[in-house]
């Protein structure tokens, strides 16, 4: 499971890419422990193997400012995650 742009602070060995992180087999768990810092904002995570991303295996990440530490705009009335992407009907094994 990779996270575009989120720094891997002191855990570069779990960047969620094949080669550094082993694939997680079906029906098993792996817990990523991340320390996030200074990157107040929006990211998303996705599986890096086997086109699982194309099948919808993604979600948004919000890194919030600590209470009392301001961001350069007023608190919005709502906060929506908008995940947009191209979409294929084909399985990746027949896609080309």
């Amino acid at each position, binding site marked *: 499971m990779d996270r*575009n*742009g*989120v720094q891997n602070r002191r855990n570069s060995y779990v960047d969620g890419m094949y080669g550094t992180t082993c694939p997680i087999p079906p029906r098993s768990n792996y817990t990523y422990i991340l320390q996030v810092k*200074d*990157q*107040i*904002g*929006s*990211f*998303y995570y*996705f599986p890096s193997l*086997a*086109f699982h*991303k*194309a*099948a*919808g295996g*993604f*979600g*948004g990440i*919000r*890194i919030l400012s600590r209470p009392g530490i301001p*961001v*350069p*705009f*007023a608190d*919005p*009335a*709502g*906060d*929506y*995650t*908008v*995940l*947009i*992407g*191209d*979409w*294929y*009907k*084909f399985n*990746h*094994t*027949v*896609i*080309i």
Partner: protein
Amino acid sequence: MHANVIDKNTHNYLFFVLQDLKSRLDRGRKLPSPDGILINGRSNGATLNVEQGVLAFDVCQSPTIFVLPKLKRKTFFFVYVVVIGKTYRLRISNVGLQDSLNFRIQNHRMKLVEVEGTHTLQTMFSSLDVHVGQSYSVLITADQSPRDYYVVVSSRFTDKIITTTGVLRYSGSSTPASGPIPGGPTIQVDWSLNQARAIRYLSFLHM
């Protein structure tokens, strides 16, 4: 050994197909044109039917997703509900495989405030190019007359431009989105580069 001569039922077959796909992509070949574009797992009725949509529905996260009761069978677009006069943050990520996308909202301009963990100089845009892997935050203010408005996402730099719509709904609105779906840039590379260059880091000097 080529994939064609492998028994299709074996695991090896998949292995060879994937190797084939990988080598083609590594040589720079693109994936074929996608069949549609999804906004939080949803599309407009034109490109998606019930069965096809089911898989992607699981990715919907926002508590404000709902399907209009009257149009249950046909309505798969994604709906954002806003209250007039208020300002909302949209965190837009391109979670696709290949296509750059342009995001825009009918009659609303967006104020860009953040890109992947960095606050930006706050610039108004009427549409925003989001390339694969990018995440942007924009603020929109519900300052139009209370009805529904199109949220439009269309593909960039493709031969065939694919468009999908969601809905920005003012709370209590019973007027569906209408009028032409707002157009955006399609194949203009310069437009995209210029917009990217216009996005600047917000330093303390600006505050």
